[in-house]
């Protein structure tokens, strides 16, 4: 005591200083992170009330409860798809923008969603992916492209005017009586509202059929007062733009024709034998209801889309920094030696970039394992079971009505186990540095 009289107070003071600096962090980490983690591990072996020890039962439940199995499968899908996608997109964006002049503007645009909460990003995508093409931008674009590629049919509805013609707008119509060269086929329709008759329609007429031809008419077999079904009469309008098929007895389509303004059509060079004439289904517009992105089937890909939108910027920025740190001299040397741009990328850039790519990839795996908020906001309540993931399942089991702390703890420990390999990796990397 007395011998170390000078050093002891000094050591004491140094220890006190260290305690002051380190104390708050140690207390916070101890009480809010370390203790609860240990407590959760213990808790996971007890039942929902915490009174009875149940061994591994909670862990068994993870693999036998339907919604939890869905969560595991979805999370596996997330890990398999999303980190790879995000890393690849980031790499592509980083490389493509390396030499453009408005690099900063582009990178800002892609990076911006990083500042937004995953929850708000989810709201954004819920609006984008609305099923109604009138409101959801994604479906509106799809419908617009579809309409441009395959113009919608000329009619929306219609019925056969005589029993000779059978079928429906959904399947198309077929004339029961077989026809042969020189015949005329009359395809009369009723129940077409006047407003839906194409505006360029004229008085219906049937072209005369030559010996090698089959002709006919598609027309609105109705006029004020009724008229006689099955006959082309004055004041009845042809249906222009309808698609008519000539089918062989086996049902195969041998020729197609489109009707004129008077509803008339003509098949040339018809051979011998009998045929059937049919009004193709394309004639009728299918009311496109839009893809059900937020429905049970597509909900997981939809949430992934939103998630990739958010995180691509992160990946791009990290990889771009990695790219810029590759020395120009090495690249120039390779080029001087006669390497092509492709070779430079594969042999020089890619290997030098590998550590950065793996950092992005691993970071994304951890993030993806913990994905939570964005699912709550993209997925409507009706598809949340189908979009379930581990972190969400943990929360719903513990706080979302079920309130089973035993099972909830087990799910949390399971999640912790999944990130442990990354923990080991982190520590190894740190020890190498020191």
């Amino acid at each position, binding site marked *: 005591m007395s011998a170390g009289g000078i050093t002891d107070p000094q050591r004491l003071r140094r220890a006190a200083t260290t305690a002051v600096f380190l104390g*708050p962090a140690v207390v916070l980490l101890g009480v809010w992170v370390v203790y609860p983690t240990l407590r959760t591990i213990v808790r996971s072996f007890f039942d929902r009330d915490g009174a009875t020890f149940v061994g591994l039962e909670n862990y068994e439940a993870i693999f036998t409860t339907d919604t939890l199995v869905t969560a595991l499968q979805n999370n596996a899908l997330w890990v398999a798809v999303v980190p790879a996608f995000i890393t690849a997109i980031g790499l592509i964006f980083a490389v493509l923008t390396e030499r453009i002049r408005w690099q900063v503007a582009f990178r800002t645009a892609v990076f911006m969603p990083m*500042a937004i909460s995953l929850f708000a990003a989810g709201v954004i995508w819920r609006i984008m992916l609305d099923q109604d093409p009138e409101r959801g931008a994604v479906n509106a674009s799809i419908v617009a492209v579809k309409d441009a590629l395959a113009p919608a049919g000329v009619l929306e509805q219609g019925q056969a005017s005589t029993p000779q013609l059978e079928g429906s707008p959904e399947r198309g119509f077929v004339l029961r009586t077989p026809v042969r060269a020189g015949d005329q086929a009359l395809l009369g329709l009723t129940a077409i509202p006047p407003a839906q008759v194409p505006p360029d329609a004229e008085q219906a007429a049937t072209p005369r059929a030559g010996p090698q031809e089959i002709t006919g008419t598609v027309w609105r077999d109705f006029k004020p007062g009724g008229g006689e079904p099955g006959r082309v009469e004055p004041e009845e309008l042809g249906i222009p733009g309808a698609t008519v098929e000539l089918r062989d007895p086996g049902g195969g389509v041998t020729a197609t024709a489109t009707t004129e303004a008077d509803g008339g059509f003509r098949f040339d060079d018809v051979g011998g034998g009998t045929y059937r004439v049919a009004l193709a289904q394309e004639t009728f517009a299918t009311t496109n209801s839009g893809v059900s992105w937020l429905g049970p089937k597509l909900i997981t890909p939809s949430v992934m889309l939103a998630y990739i939108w958010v995180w691509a910027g992160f990946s791009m920025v990290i990889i771009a920094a990695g790219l810029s740190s590759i020395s120009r001299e090495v690249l120039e040397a390779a080029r001087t030696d006669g390497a092509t741009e492709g070779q430079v990328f594969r042999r020089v850039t890619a290997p030098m970039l590998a550590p950065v790519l793996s950092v992005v990839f691993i970071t994304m795996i951890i993030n993806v394992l913990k994905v939570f908020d964005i699912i709550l906001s993209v997925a409507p309540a009706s598809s949340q079971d189908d979009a379930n993931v581990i972190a969400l399942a943990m929360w719903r089991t*513990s706080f979302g009505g079920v309130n089973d702390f035993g099972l909830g703890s087990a799910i949390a420990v399971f999640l912790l186990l999944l990130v442990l390999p990354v923990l080991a990796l982190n520590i190894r990397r740190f020890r190498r540095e020191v």
Partner: protein
Amino acid sequence: MAARIVRFATKAPLQILLLVIALLWLVPTLGLLLTSVMPAELISTEGWWKIFSEPSLATFDNYRAVFDNEDLTTALWTTVQIAVGNTILLVLVSAMAGYAFAWLPFPGRDWLFVLVIALLVVPLQTALIPIFSLYQSTGLFDTVLGLILFHTAFGLPFGVFLMRNFFIGIPKDLLESARIDGASELTIFFRLILPLGLPAIASLAIFQFLWTWNDLIVALTFGRETQPITVAVFTQLRQFGGNIELIAPASFVSLAIPLVVFFAFQRYFAQGLLAGSVK
């Protein structure tokens, strides 16, 4: 001149492709903004792009409704309290611990730091249940302080890691001469270390601010009446479709502040990301 045209022609497809990508990336956010200014009676039948053809439709009524809604304004204020309080506390505690790990030798220092790194990946889900019980019994449940402390604790591993790595780069001579001059460690910390560490502190502060501002799960678990804006919007979202005229502007308000912070301090944000993942 000819060479210029050739260069432009070969580069044009790439430029156009990138322009399309950049626009695609901006469209969703723009969609939310335009949805938020659509008249309430049109919102359930028309898409937001209608505003392009009829700009006169745009209205601020929805925003007025948000700011008249007491739940939402209270939530916004709560969010500010949590985010600011948490950011200050976290920066201070991280910087102090980071300094200790960098410049105060003590037994077991390396081991303790390895532990901090280990905690870096612990999912916060692991702590939810015990802290829930702890908060219930101590009165921290449903308080701003409770939320701040939880966020700070889970931000610490990254904060300490970032600060220690930054401080360790400070020249040793600088510290030694201050110590020889008889300055106490506290003086050194506040007068020398903190000012020098400003770039790293800025990165950490922005990160933590955005993280807390954007949090949903923590507030959803430990709050009932104490609701930040994300939770308030989430509550509205449960009846999605009927009240999108409230959800859209409220969501936009909730992301406007992070966006402003992001654009103002973009450089530090990117630096923080790099420090956190590459080093």
